[in-house]
């Protein structure tokens, strides 16, 4: 990357390190930090959307929808999370291939489950075996994002459901007495008022989401954990111009610090946001601020 890095043999100390961590392979590590951030950026709103849907369904007056919503919220609890991740990634993949198989190859007569195999016609394979490597990677990543969104959606639904119930009844009743329709009450009173009650739970969820990102590695995405293991392993002079011993412990120390900093910064931002949103709201936090005279 830099001029001085052309001949690694002559380098030493800090300049060696600078050249070492800017090798093309290390850039993959830095890109994978981007992957993690991208995952968070896509998953957080998607999960919120899922959560919103789940919460609205759980509040529904129609019994069937109510049951579906409540089942979605409660089914994710009581079971280890990783089991869900491992399950959903295969299950969604098979669901997609099965659907495509039914549509694309209607004349196929053999059963799809043959003993221990899951066989679909070549046209139904996802992604197609002829497609380039990057499509395979993007597909794997999207499956992971979707899985994250389903699992975290259930938790967000739980938080939002609680928050909607925490909105003071008097406010809703006032709105109704002003002649607002149910829709209007929902849009103008319930939704704006709910956020302050939801924020602590959602903030907590965000922290958990950050801490869940290394699980991408289990789902087969080449993320930070993958590259830290890959780059940290012993390198002999035969294959690289930067030989070193087993440095995985240092790489994971780096990751540890990265995550600590990330959660700490998030915590500070959420606290700040909470303070701002509490202003003038009918909660303990809002009351405290009023007495202090802000």
């Amino acid at each position, binding site marked *: 990357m830099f001029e001085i890095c052309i001949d690694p043999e002559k380098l030493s100390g800090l300049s060696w390190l600078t050249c070492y961590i800017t090798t093309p392979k290390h850039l993959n590590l830095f890109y994978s930090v981007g992957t993690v951030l991208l995952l968070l950026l896509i998953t957080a709103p998607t999960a919120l959307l899922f959560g919103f849907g789940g919460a609205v369904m759980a509040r529904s007056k129609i019994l069937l929808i109510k049951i579906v919503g409540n089942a979605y919220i409660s089914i994710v609890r009581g*079971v280890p999370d990783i089991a869900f991740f491992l399950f959903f990634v295969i299950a969604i993949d098979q669901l997609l291939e099965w659907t495509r198989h039914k549509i694309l190859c209607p004349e196929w007569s053999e059963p799809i489950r043959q003993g221990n195999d899951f066989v679909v016609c070549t046209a139904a394979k996802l992604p197609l075996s002829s497609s380039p490597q990057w499509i395979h990677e993007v597909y794997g990543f999207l499956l992971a994002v979707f899985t994250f969104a389903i699992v975290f959606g259930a*938790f967000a639904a739980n938080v939002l459901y609680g928050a909607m119930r925490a909105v003071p009844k008097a406010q809703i009743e006032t709105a109704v007495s002003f002649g607002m329709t149910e829709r209007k009450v929902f849009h103008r009173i319930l939704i704006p008022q709910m956020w302050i009650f939801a924020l602590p739970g959602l903030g907590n969820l965000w922290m*958990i989401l950050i801490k869940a990102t290394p699980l991408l590695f289990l789902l087969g995405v080449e993320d930070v954990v993958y590259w830290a293991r890959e780059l940290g392993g012993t390198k002999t002079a035969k294959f690289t111009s930067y030989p070193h011993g087993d440095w995985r412990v240092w790489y*994971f120390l780096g990751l540890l610090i990265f995550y600590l900093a990330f*959660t700490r910064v998030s915590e500070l931002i959420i606290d700040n946001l909470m303070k701002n949103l509490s202003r003038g709201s009918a909660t303990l936090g809002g009351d405290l601020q009023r007495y202090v005279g802000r």
Partner: protein
Amino acid sequence: MSCLDIIADYGLRSIGLGERLLPRSDFTLCHQFTLIGSGMIWNIYFGTLALASGFILATLLALGKASKKIYLRKLSGWFIFVFRGSPLFIQFFFAYFLFLSLKQSFTFLSPLTSAWAGALFVLFCNTAAYSGEIFYGALQAIPKSDLEAADAYGLSGFSRFRRIVWPTMLRLAWPAYTNEAIFLFHATTLVFFSSFPAWQQRGDALYYANYFADKTFNPFIPYPILAGYFILLTLILIGLFGLANRKLNIHLPKDKHTKIKFRVRLIR
């Protein structure tokens, strides 16, 4: 081969007793139930020991964080921050590689590179940090009147702590601590999925569930079995902690008993 034979062969497979080879074909439901159940031994081992040992450290951490001495406060605060602020997954990896490199200079540390000791140590620190924070919160919430009453009775020092502060702290923290316990058991499934190797295919429940899902390419059987086992374990835990909760609140009138509300967080 009847199901009883399979249970005899594989029931204790996860701790190395019984059949050496895992089944390779013709997986029956019985195989899956038996092996995944066998793996639960590890989950219970990790969970119970980490919880019991973590409890002691958690109490010390809570007292340290509430201490007047600044170095104790800083030390416990940082311990809690490090273990609560970073993913357990990364902690496992880091600890494993750390133990690997320490092993070279101190050979007596070599058990720490295998899961039964190394992963247990990480889980111990992790649950101590999470419970320590819970206990610290409870410690701050002890009613002033309780402490004033203790002072009025002339209690001080350790007897004041043992008779008043500690029981009240536990009472207040118990619902949250129950969740922490449930959650710790769920977290034990990460052990063999992080860096700690499963020696001779002796793994935990998730390890075997994953084995079956990989071999049969059918996730719809092993994972629900695993889920069933964990729901059962969770119910047992809630029952046990509920009993302890009753004992802690035995002096209160029946309707004042705090109900434990079951709420589980996700990944740590």
